[in-house]
């Protein structure tokens, strides 16, 4: 059994007379020590999926169907106190902007000790020792001195290292990282990604990396889940998805990247934009932007079905892939 199982998850946001459905039958697994990438454009539902695992969806949003099973426990059925024990302890989270995550009026040491004491019965001295160990582990130079610093005294990259150190404090089983390097410069991003990769390998921590950046997931993760309009449209092993994605959307997304195109020529593009939650099309949610859409796609929503090593939600996956490989005229 997987460490984390998300099954047929529906998340709804009742807003006045309308109800918006942010997630629609989302399912995926995360194994112990596995690195999983959740990829999608803004509004695809990748952050909602992560938040719903930790029961952090902002009211009035709620999980209306499906379940999240962590280490054998159905997280929907446990008490708040039991959730407290899991959230920030067994499952940690790293957010995009370290300046928003860290409290600006407390030293990073205070914040680290506070976090440890919330989850463990531990003396101040022991908490301090563990915190400094973790700061050293994320390669913060002169960790003991940095312990007394305030967040504003650190650079952006250092702050994100502190956030990672805090996530590691309680030796979690899973780290959920929501766009952890999006706010950073490319050289700092490379350092932080390398650090996260090493830490996950060394500690056997499972990583759920949420990002819009396909190049980043291709270098860090072992498996990819692609989301579109609140649904999982494709999932599979990272190398297979990057080299030979089966869903026209995934394929289009990869082909749209400048590094996948010959310099100076027009880029491959997917026409249109992702629908908002208020105007989800009938049938396959991607059909208005898909070059291969036919009557079936306009009427019936495709199920996620197993094809080779992965799963694809496309009526014509086998047929399209043949055409794309032959013609190379991706959507």
């Amino acid at each position, binding site marked *: 059994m997987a460490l984390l199982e998300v099954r047929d998850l529906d998340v709804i946001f009742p807003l006045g007379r309308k109800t918006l459905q942010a997630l629609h039958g989302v399912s995926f697994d995360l194994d112990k020590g596995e690195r999983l990438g959740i990829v999608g*454009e803004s509004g695809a539902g990748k952050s909602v999926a992560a938040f719903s695992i930790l029961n952090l969806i902002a009211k009035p949003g709620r999980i209306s169907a499906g379940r999240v099973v962590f280490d054998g426990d159905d997280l929907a059925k446990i008490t708040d106190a039991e959730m407290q024990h899991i959230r920030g302890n067994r499952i940690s989270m790293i957010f995009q902007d370290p300046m928003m995550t860290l409290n600006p009026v407390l030293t990073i040491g205070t914040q680290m000790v506070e976090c440890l004491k919330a989850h463990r019965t531990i003396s101040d001295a022991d908490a301090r020792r563990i915190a400094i160990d973790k700061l050293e582990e994320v390669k913060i130079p002169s960790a003991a001195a940095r312990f007394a610093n305030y967040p504003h005294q650190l650079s952006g990259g250092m702050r994100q290292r502190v956030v990672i150190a805090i996530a590691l404090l309680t030796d979690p089983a899973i780290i959920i990282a929501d766009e952890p390097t999006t706010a950073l410069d490319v050289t700092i991003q490379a350092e932080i990604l390398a650090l996260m*990769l090493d830490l996950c390998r060394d500690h056997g921590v499972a990583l759920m990396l949420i990002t819009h950046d396909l190049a980043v997931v291709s270098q860090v993760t072992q498996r990819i889940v692609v989301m579109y309009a609140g649904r999982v449209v494709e999932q599979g092993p990272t190398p297979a998805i990057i080299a030979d994605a089966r869903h026209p959307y995934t394929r289009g997304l990869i082909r*749209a990247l400048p590094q996948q195109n010959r310099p100076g020529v027009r880029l491959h593009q997917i026409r249109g934009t992702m629908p908002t939650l208020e105007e989800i099309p009938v049938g396959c949610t991607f059909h208005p932007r898909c070059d291969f859409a036919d009557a079936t796609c306009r009427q019936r929503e495709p199920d996620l079905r197993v094809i080779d090593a992965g799963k694809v939600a496309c009526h014509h996956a086998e047929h399209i892939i043949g055409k794309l490989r032959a013609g190379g005229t991706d959507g």
Partner: protein
Amino acid sequence: MVEPADRPLVEIDQLHKTFQVGSDGWFGNRPRLVRAINGVSITILKGESFCLVGESGCGKSTLARTVMGLEKPSSGAVCYDGTRIDDLADSRRLPFRRKMQMIFQNPYASLNPRMTVRQILEEPLRFHRPELGAAERYDKVVAVMTSVGNNPDWGARFPHEFSGGQRQRISIARALMVDPEFVVADEPISALDVSIQAQVLNVMMDARERHDLTYLFITHDLSVVEHFGTRVGVMYLGTLCELADTRTLFASPRHPYTQGLLAAIPRMDGSQLSHVKMTGEVPTAMDLPSGCVFHGRCPLARERCQREIPELREVAGRQIACHYAEETA
């Protein structure tokens, strides 16, 4: 693709830009300065798509704003088509403002939320071409909206009714309304989603052909540079460290900073994370290192680098500011 003619369109000569951000000393008589740009010289040829890359705080946006006349240079000169423009009075500068237009990063902030799209697009025309009648102005709106791939019937709508990609196309349309020759684009696709980035980049490349544009494209995203640029300047802490045509730079970067920057691009060729060549972070421009600004992070730095500022010089078909450029191949 438009082949660059060898005529210089924009010449930036020994540009310096310093901002005072406060003062020190007993009597507040010692100004605290940020040296945003330190002696940058770039010549942009007609028809080029010149890209300027660097990390945040390297001065690339300040350079763009200074070229556009949104900031006055502290010293140095900016020439447009042979005329020095940085010291012109506002009224004399006006004709140049029509020829030079700018596209900003955030289409949510750069479009006035209380104006309709049609008002937004007509405003530059009313200002720069007051001789045009209402009908001519409207025709131009329709033509330009169509050319950037937006529906011309959207003129009565407000910016909030559009997605990010559509909004960025509106700001490109606004820049194109007055038929500019030179367009400065400051991170025009950074705020957009991947599938939308490709659309907007395509619109900009189409506009380049259709309107015979010259671009100064500011970005931190090197994979976009490789695709879009004809020549690239790499900036670090207000200094130009390497300048070459795109193919040369990506095939064989020679400045240690460029090498580190290229190695840091996440690649999709199935490789795992490449070895990180560069450590540490960019120092602030308030406290510039002595000598070569990059020496603190440079794997090759020696004693001379701490002492002596390297001049930009010609090595292996590119301009490079490194004392040991011969050894970096």
